[in-house]
């Protein structure tokens, strides 16, 4: 255990400019939604942060109409070079307000300030910056001459990276000339509504971006609205299937970014200390609330004991607690509901006979927290090896040969991401080729960039976000 204690280094919550209430953003204005208002909590303290107005069916319809009008009268007619300048403005405004956004994100989501400050917010700005440059170069995207936007995009995003997922959705949609109605997650609506202010500051034409907070019923209204041309969804595979079913037989174009159960494969020649850092980053980053988390560690049998010893030591040094403290490694689980799901699945792991080890770190009495947990002796048939836990829980399995590693890694209906740890270059490339996953990280994990396409195989969804490939999702090609 570490010999020194850290002095608390909390970021001030005043920086978030938290307001007592927030409202939907429709047609360029904040409006009073006619849905039942929701209260968003700080998951680290369980206190109410703010009341948020939600969009009813009628409000969703108003938002879609506003988006349609903006699409037809303004946005689709504007030269790409002009559209680009609005998107560049948004990128800059996110950078200017980055500290405020980071603190607000950590308050609303529970993620450590270090992550919201160093990853979520800067990467969100980068997505707008990257896509802005595409707006007047779409002829060069390889989709034929003069590719056309689709129209109005309905976008539904999850609670794990609220602002970043918004950027992944809105930046390519705007750059390609579409207008947007976006529903943020029920438990994390706040940064999306500050983003709406940024749209106003950027003088984005009214209706180009509309934000409609609400729960699943608001999302269903958006998915089923007849005047939507495109649905983009990031979230669970279960809800993704419902959406695909709802959209079936309509002219709506669909992209889905769903769940995962990524294998992180460690060979016996891997640099183990680096691998341990990668494993920890892979599963404990963002409390494990990551669809591409490396939740199944596949360790070569000859190194599993050494690797587990190093891993347990390293995990025991992770600091769990106040998300606003700059020393915190692991923040709060986003909701009581998610915490219950993590508990239920870890209990099934014990019941099915896996060996549970949990970090002895202190856990705050209030708030939704779950200490990092590692299961060893896991079999492929166990629920903790098959189902997405979406929490700080790692399942460790073993293999003997590269072929067995591939077979086990691919033994899942998902296919979002995978990791490889080995010093042998030819093995990396062979493994990368064999793994049925949309993103493969070799000797690293959880790297994201707007220039690098991201998305899944099989039941992890279809379509890509980022890079030239990502533009296809928003163009008629």
């Amino acid at each position: 255990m570490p010999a020194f204690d850290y002095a608390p280094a909390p970021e001030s919550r005043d920086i978030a400019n938290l307001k007592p209430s927030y409202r939907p953003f429709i047609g360029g204005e904040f409006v009073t939604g006619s849905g039942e208002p929701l209260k968003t909590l700080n998951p680290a303290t369980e206190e109410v942060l703010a009341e948020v107005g939600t969009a009813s069916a009628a409000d969703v319809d108003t938002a879609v109409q506003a988006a349609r009008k903006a699409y037809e009268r303004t946005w689709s007619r504007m030269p790409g070079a002009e559209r680009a300048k609005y998107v560049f403005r948004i990128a800059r405004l996110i950078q200017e307000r980055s500290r405020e956004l980071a603190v607000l994100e950590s308050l609303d989501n529970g993620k450590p300030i270090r992550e919201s400050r160093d990853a979520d917010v800067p990467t969100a700005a980068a997505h707008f910056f990257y896509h802005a440059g595409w707006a007047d170069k779409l002829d060069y995207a390889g989709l034929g001459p003069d590719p056309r936007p689709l129209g109005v995009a309905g976008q539904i995003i999850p609670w794990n990276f609220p602002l970043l997922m918004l950027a992944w959705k809105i930046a390519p949609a705007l750059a390609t000339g579409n207008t947007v109605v976006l529903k943020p997650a029920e438990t994390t609506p706040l940064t999306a509504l500050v983003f709406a202010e940024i749209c106003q500051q950027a003088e984005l034409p009214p209706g180009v971006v509309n934000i409609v907070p609400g729960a699943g019923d608001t999302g269903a209204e958006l998915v089923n609205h007849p005047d939507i041309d495109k649905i983009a969804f990031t979230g669970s595979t279960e809800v993704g299937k419902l959406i695909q079913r709802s959209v079936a037989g309509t002219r709506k174009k669909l992209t889905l970014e769903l769940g995962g159960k990524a294998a992180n494969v460690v060979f016996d020649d891997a640099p183990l200390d680096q691998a341990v850092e990668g494993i920890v980053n892979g599963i404990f980053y963002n409390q494990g609330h990551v669809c591409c988390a490396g939740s199944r560690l596949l360790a070569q049998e000859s190194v599993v004991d050494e690797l587990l010893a190093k891993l347990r030591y390293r995990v025991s040094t992770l600091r769990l607690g106040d998300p606003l403290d700059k020393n915190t490694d692991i923040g709060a689980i986003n909701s009581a509901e998610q915490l219950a799901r993590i508990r239920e699945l870890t209990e099934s792991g014990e019941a099915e006979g896996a060996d549970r080890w949990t970090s002895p770190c202190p856990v705050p009495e209030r708030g939704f927290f779950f200490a990092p947990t590692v299961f060893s002796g896991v079999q492929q048939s166990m629920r903790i090896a098959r189902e997405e836990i979406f929490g700080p829980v790692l399942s460790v399995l073993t293999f003997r040969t590269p072929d067995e590693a591939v077979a086990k890694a691919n033994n899942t209906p998902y296919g979002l991401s995978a990791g490889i740890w080995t010093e042998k270059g030819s093995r990396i490339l062979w493994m990368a080729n064999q793994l049925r996953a949309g993103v493969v990280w070799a000797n690293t994990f959880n790297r994201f960039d707007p220039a690098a396409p991201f998305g899944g195989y099989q039941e992890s969804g279809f379509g890509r976000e980022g890079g030239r490939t990502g533009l296809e999702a928003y163009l008629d090609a």
Partner: protein
Amino acid sequence: MPDRVSVAKTYKLYIGGKFPRSESGRVYPVHDAKGRFLANAAHSSRKDVRDAVAAARKAFAGWSGATAYNRGQVLYRVAEMLEGRREQFAGEVAASEDIPARKAQSAVDTAIDRWVWYAGWTDKIATVLGAANPVAGPYFSFTVPEPTGVVAILAPQRSSLLGLVSVLAPVLAAGNTAVVVSSADRPLPAITLSEVLATADLPGGVVNMLTGRAAELGSWLAAHANVNALDPTGAEPVERGELARLAAGTVKRVLTVPEDEPDWTQRPDLGRLRTYLEPKTVWHPMGV
């Protein structure tokens, strides 16, 4: 009196590189447009679908793992074989589609040329649709398009060869394996195409050809957990919604198709190839 009695052919299925009858023992008569009997075609069943999907899955590792150059050569060989059977196909297409011999010949020629076009794509897809990603960090990141897996094709009902080739060749060029339900009323060119595939070094199971009713077999394919993508071209427009709903159960890729069967003589774009490809992004750190 004819000089000799011709040897009539029994048209069977093509599954896993073999030509079995339907396990159901069912057949249905195929007529030309004037109502003359042409042949009995096998009436495929749910179990034939299951066998075909299993064969396609088994063949996937080999076909997707072959080099793009090798796949291109095999597909070009198919075109060579097609060219050799030009007259036979023209006769079958003319009889099936009730079109004049010259028009049938033109459709066959376009089908052969289309096959050559796709054969040449195998080793260019990664160059045109892949990328080196300029990421903001010390990493090498690249994206390569890979085949999605087993593709179920409900082939066009009207265009018995050109339409079939236009929907099948892109699936194969992208490195996928296929289960095809041929045109129900015009299945004979599809079975003859299978004979071409079987003699063109295409590994068994890469293409599996079923004759029968798309309305009956489509739902089994759309719901099958071992099928990764679906081309509903040959389904009635009213059936496509239900097929897409079934496909959602396993998050299948479903090709967007026009309401009516398109004009297959038009040169295709990359839409079909792209639907059956999964871009894979690989990252590795750079350092000394």
